[in-house]
C-alpha cells in the first residue's frame, strides 16, 4: 500500500525535537553576530536570526558533548577574528554586519587550513537553516512540495496498476542541448 505523506514541516510522528542547548548570553550574542554576517540580509523575517541560531543550538544537542563544546569555543575565537588577523581590536559583535562579513570572508579564503576549518561549522549550520526557510525558497524560486505531491499521486496510480505515460516524464528543456 502506498503511504499518504503529509509533507508537513513538523510531522507528528510522536518524535520530539531536542530543546536548544543552553549557552551564556555572551555566546548567544556571538552566534547572532555570526549568523547576521553569514546569511543574506534579505529576505528575512523579524525572527530569522533567532530562528537560525536556535536551530544551531538544537543541532548541537545531537552532537557529542566534546564536539558541541569545541564548536562553541571555535565561535568565540571566530568572534575575535579581527584581533588574530591583526586587522582590528574589536570583536565581530561590535562591528557592523558588512565589516564582520568582510572578516569572515577573509577567514573563509585563508590559505591556512585550520583557519578555514573554523568556518565549516557556522557556514554549514546557518546557511543550511536559512536556505531551508519558505521565504528563502521563494527567493530562489524553489517550491518542492507541489512537485512531490504530484509524484506521490503518480506513484499511487502506478501502484494501482496505471503505468505512467510519456507525458509524466520530467522535462524542462525542449531537448538536451546539442
Amino acid at each position, binding site marked *: 500500500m*502506498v*503511504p*499518504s*505523506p503529509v*509533507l508537513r514541516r513538523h*510531522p507528528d*510522528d*510522536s*518524535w520530539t*525535537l*531536542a*530543546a536548544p542547548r543552553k549557552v551564556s548570553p555572551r555566546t548567544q550574542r556571538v552566534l547572532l553576530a555570526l549568523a547576521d*554576517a*553569514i546569511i*543574506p540580509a534579505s529576505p528575512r523575517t523579524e525572527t530569522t536570526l533567532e530562528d537560525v541560531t536556535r*536551530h544551531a543550538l*538544537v*543541532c548541537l*544537542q*545531537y*552532537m*557529542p*558533548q*566534546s564536539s558541541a563544546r569545541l*564548536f562553541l569555543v571555535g565561535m568565540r575565537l571566530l568572534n575575535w577574528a579581527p584581533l588574530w588577523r591583526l586587522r582590528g581590536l574589536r570583536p565581530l559583535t561590535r562591528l557592523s554586519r558588512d565589516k564582520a*562579513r568582510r572578516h569572515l570572508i577573509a577567514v573563509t*579564503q585563508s590559505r591556512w*587550513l585550520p583557519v*578555514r*576549518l573554523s568556518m*565549516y561549522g557556522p557556514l*554549514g*549550520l546557518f*546557511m*543550511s*537553516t*536559512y*536556505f*531551508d526557510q519558505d521565504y528563502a*525558497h521563494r*527567493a*530562489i*524560486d*524553489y517550491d*518542492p512540495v507541489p*512537485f*512531490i505531491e504530484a*509524484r*506521490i499521486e*503518480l*506513484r499511487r496510480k*502506478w501502484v494501482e496498476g496505471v503505468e*505512467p505515460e510519456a507525458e*509524466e*516524464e*520530467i522535462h*524542462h*528543456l525542449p531537448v*538536451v*542541448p546539442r
Partner: protein
Amino acid sequence: MTILAHRDYRNGQTFDAEVVVVGTGAGGAVAGAELAEAGRDVLFVEEGGYHPTSSLNPYLTESLPRLYRDAGGTIIMGRPPIPYAEGRCVGGSTLVNGGMTWRPPERVLMEWESLVGQPDLGAKALEPFFDRVEERIHAKPQHPVSVGEDSRLLEEGARRLGWRYEHNRRAQDRCVGSNQCLTGCPTGAKQSTLLNYMPRALSFGARCLTEVRIQKLWIEGGRCVGVMGKAVNPRTRQCDIDVRVRSRAVVVSCGAVQTPYLLLGHRVGRPSRQIGKNFLCHPNAKVVAIYPFDIHAWQGVSQGGQIREFLDEGIVMAENAIPPGTAAAQIPFLGEEALELMKQYNGMAMTGVLVDDSHAGTVTRSFDAPLAKYSITAYDHERFLRGVRRLAMLHFEMGAKQVVLPFSNMHIANSIDDLDQIERTQRSRSTIELFTVHLMGTCRMGGNRRSSVVNLQGELWDLPGCYVADASLFPTAVGVNPQVTIMALATMVAQRLELPN
C-alpha cells in the same frame, strides 16, 4: 510490530533475546531479518528514532536532527578534513542514501579472495548473496518517468566526449523521481531497510528498541552475552535510562566508524590489532555547474547514472542533486553573494567525482566520540584534479556558463580555458574540498587471525559470540556504492552465525 522508544523503558531494564543486533541499516537490518526468518528471537537496538514514511518531508532543519548522526555535523580529520554523513534512525544510512546497487567490480572481489586466502569473498561465492539481496530490495534500472534533466545532461555530455555512461540500478519499487533520497523518500519507492528488511524482520517476531545508545558489550567468561547502553532522552539528549540486553549472540552493525568505537572500548581484537585500522572512505569532490537555462535538478531521481569511463583509474563521476540548504553550505560565498548564486539554483547541476581509496586511515576512541583520521595521498590528489577537470570540461561542453570548483583558492571557472589553471594553482592537498558518505573497512574480515579482526563467519577472532555485519568488514574499498555489498556480507554472516548450545 514491536518498536519501543525512550518513554517505554524502565531504568535498569534487561531484555532477553537469542540474538541482539545493534543497528538497523544495511548491515543490521539484513542480518536481523535473515536470523528472524530462520526462527531466531531477534532484538534490534537502534540509537536513532523510528520515522515512518508518512513523516518524511523535504525540510533539512527537520531531517538533519531526525535522520542523521550528529545532525550531519560529522567530520573526518586529516588533510584535507572530510565532512561525512551517515544515518541515525531506523533504516540507518539506507533511509538517506541514493539507493544505488552496484556490485563491486570483479577486480575488487579477486583481490578480496586473494587477501583472505579463501574463496569465501570471491565473486562466485558471493553471487548467491548478491542475488538474494537484489531481489529483496528490488534492484532495478529507473523507469524513464523518474529521470531528470541533470541526468540527461550528464549522459549526453558523456556521449559527446565518448565516455561510458551507465544507468544506475537502484533499490526502488516504482520510483517516480521525487528527488528526496537525502531527506528520506516520501513516496515509499526507495527500498530502504525501513521499508523492506525491517518490516520483514518484525513480521517474523523481531523486536526493536529505538533511542538506545549501546555503550558496552556484555562479556562473561570470555564470551559476549549481550550489550549494555542507555536510552537517550529525546528532549534533553541526556543518556538517562540504563538498558541491557542479554543474548546468546551479538551482531554489531553500527557502521565503519561506530563499530570500531564500540569494540575498542574492550580488550578485543588483540591477535591482529587491526580494529579501527584500514579505514576507507571513497572521498568525493563536488563540481557544481551553472547553466544559463533552468534544468530543475531537484526534480527527477537523485542519481540516474554514472560515468564509468575512468573506473580503471578509480574515478567515478555522477550527478547528485542536493537541497538548497546543503548546496548553500557548500558554496564559498556569504550573504548577498551567496543569495545571488543560489538564485541560480534551478540552473545548477550538482555533480561529483568519487575517487577510490589508495590508502587507509584510522578510527580511534577520543573523549566521548570516535575520532576518524584520513588524509588523501598525492596520487589521490592528482586523480581528483584530473577528475574535476574532466567533469568541468563536460559541463562547459554542454553549455554551462560557470562551474563552481572544489578548491578553496580557485572556486570559479568561467570558461574551459580557466581549467588550465587547475594544475598550476592546486599544488597542496589542503586546498581541495571533499566530503563522503561511504565509510568502510575498520574491522576487516579474513581467514587469518593475525591480519583480520573477524573470521569468515563474521565473529571476532578473540571474542566468541560477537559478530560484525556492516561495511567495516570490507578488506579493501569497493570502488562503488557499498550498499549491496554490505547487505550481501550481512546475509552471509547471518547464515553462518552459530548459537552456543
